[in-house]
């Protein structure tokens, strides 16, 4: 039954070619494939330094069947604004300008440009594919890395000591017309959100959880399952926000315990049961806050 639904909902169109150079099981490459299925060929992408800089292929190759402008690490939203302005001058209102950045390029170095574009309500779609660290440079912590995680700059002896930044609240505070989270394990939800974003004028922000086998220290075949576990455990709730005001869950969050999700990942191997309980209570507290926003508005 569910398979029939998925087949109906997910376009057959493929704009990511085979032969790209992503790692096996890469969540980020699946994210791009699904987003482009929903956007179609009238799309222009700009992306900063990130895994996709490599995945899309070296000059003169490209794994994408839409135009792609590489840009500097902190410049995604500003570059996208420039593309939009040029298209506006050409009278092209139909092409979607897609800013495509990782969590480092969004949460950290690209936050200023993103805030600027969001405040100006630029008519762009900004997608952050979040693998929770600087994976392309070899697994260094970003402000999207969860508390307690090992990375090469937060060694197991002193793992990440700050919680993941609440990026969605920042975007909501800008009152952008549309902001949403989703994961690569929820393809129908993802496609619907991209389609909704495409039909919305102004700044759209999509935060996609995209597990990374080498960075999370998991097997290649586990990414989709982990993305779904992150949602079931409420570690990564899936919801949407309109105009910073109306918050709405779009999938079920049964509230499974976080421990199996944490234990599956090598990056959390060093954590004690007590530390995992701390993660659980943080997840619970954040969930309560989010639920209140959904129930009562921002």
């Amino acid at each position, binding site marked *: 039954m569910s398979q029939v639904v998925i087949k109906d909902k997910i376009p057959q169109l493929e704009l990511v070619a085979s032969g790209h150079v992503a790692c096996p099981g890469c969540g980020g490459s699946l994210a791009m494939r699904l987003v482009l299925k929903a956007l179609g*060929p*009238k*799309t*222009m992408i*700009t992306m900063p330094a990130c895994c996709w*800089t*490599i995945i*899309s*292929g*070296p*000059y*003169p*190759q*490209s794994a*994408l*069947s*839409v*135009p*792609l*402008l*590489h*840009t*500097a690490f*902190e*410049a995604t*939203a*500003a*570059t*996208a*604004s*420039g*593309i*939009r*302005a*040029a*298209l*506006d*001058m*050409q009278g092209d209102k139909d*092409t979607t300008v897609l800013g495509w950045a990782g969590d480092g390029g969004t949460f950290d170095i690209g936050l*200023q*440009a993103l*805030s*600027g574009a969001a*405040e*100006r309500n*630029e008519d762009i779609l900004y997608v952050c594919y979040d693998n929770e660290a600087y994976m392309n440079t070899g697994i260094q912590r970003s402000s999207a890395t969860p508390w307690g995680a090992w990375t090469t700059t937060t060694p197991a002896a002193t793992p990440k000591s700050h919680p993941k930044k609440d990026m969605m609240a920042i975007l909501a505070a800008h009152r952008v017309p549309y902001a949403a989270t989703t994961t690569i394990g929820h393809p129908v939800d993802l496609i619907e959100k991209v389609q909704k974003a495409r039909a919305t004028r102004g700044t759209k922000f999509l935060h996609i959880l995209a597990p990374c086998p080498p960075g999370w220290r998991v097997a290649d075949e586990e990414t989709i399952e982990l993305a779904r576990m992150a949602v079931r455990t409420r570690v990564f709730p899936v919801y949407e926000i309109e105009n910073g005001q109306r918050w709405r869950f779009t999938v079920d969050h049964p509230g499974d315990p976080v421990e199996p999700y944490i234990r599956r990942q090598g990056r959390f191997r060093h954590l004690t049961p007590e530390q995992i309980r701390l993660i659980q209570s943080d997840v619970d507290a954040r969930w309560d806050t989010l639920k209140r926003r959904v129930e009562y508005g921002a």
Partner: protein
Amino acid sequence: MGNHAVSWGVRLSRAEVIAAYPITPQTQVVEELSEMCAKGDLKARFIKVESEHSAMAACIGAASTGARTFTATSAQGLALMHEMLHWAAGARLPIVMADINRAMAPGWTVWADQNDSLSQRDTGWLQFYCESNQEVLDSTIQAFKIAEAVDLPVMIILDAFYLSHTYEPVDIPDQAEVDAFLPRWVARYRMDTNDPHSYGALATPAVYMEMRLRQQEAMEQALKVVDEVDEEWGRRFGRRYGAIESYRTEGADLVIVASGTITSTTRHVVDRLREKGEKVGLVKVRMFRPFPTEAVRRALAGVPQVAVLDRNISPGHCGIFAEEIRAALYDLEPGQRPVIHGYIIGLGGRDVRPENIIDCVDRTREAAKSGRPPAREDVWVGVQP
């Protein structure tokens, strides 16, 4: 004022996308352009970005999508753009920018010197240093034509306050005449969903070097294009500037080299000294990148003494124009090779008065008497003891 000359140049050039961030002493450029866009006198999208880095990034996005693109900045703003200046040039985008020459902090300063723009020497932008507001307006329009002919970005540079905020009469050409000189830009390559390509992708050691070689070839081509465009401008509008200009250098035994507004003061000094019978001339360097090596050699070969006035300093070395001119003249025959005297002057907006320039001439004559090369490559003029 010079800032309005910039804005009018941009308006007449029919820029389509402007992305800029305000900084003293550039602010009237963005204010005037905002007014022009608001009134519909200039049909452009003006993106009021949150930083200069984003200004240049937005220009890169717009130019990559085929729009004629402009920005303006100064000092700290230009330094913040640095990464994207390389990007614009490396991506071969004909973006035009006005930089109001302002000294770099600390201490905080808003006054004129050239260290901001000269610090961007190696980013791959053409650089023009202007002497008058008329030259600013004319150069801005020329800049788009040059940039689009060679697919390289161009920086028009004017001194803080001495030009940016100083009023002088400027002839504003007719729109129709400018349109005939500068037709609509049709990008050779641009983002196009009907013909998708990837721009700026990973360049391995197998391909990178050729990309930089093409860029260098375009710079060489620009030497010729700059002259052609200037010649056409002269034919249409009756004013020419050249990459460099020689002023009263006939038979000179001492030539002063200057750039920016110091040039006008030097003209005045040269006239005064010529009246007294001194054989002194002036070479104005307007184009600093690409460096007009051949023109500089022709202008200065056989001149015994050359005094270079630098409103800038490369700390640990010397004035930057002096350094480049010395290098350009090194290959002349020994009998033809001038002695170069380098003077650091007017940093951080310090006034450069005629007597300061006469002081440079006197010191040059004094040093020349010894028959030996100057003791220092950087002689600081007009400083407190």
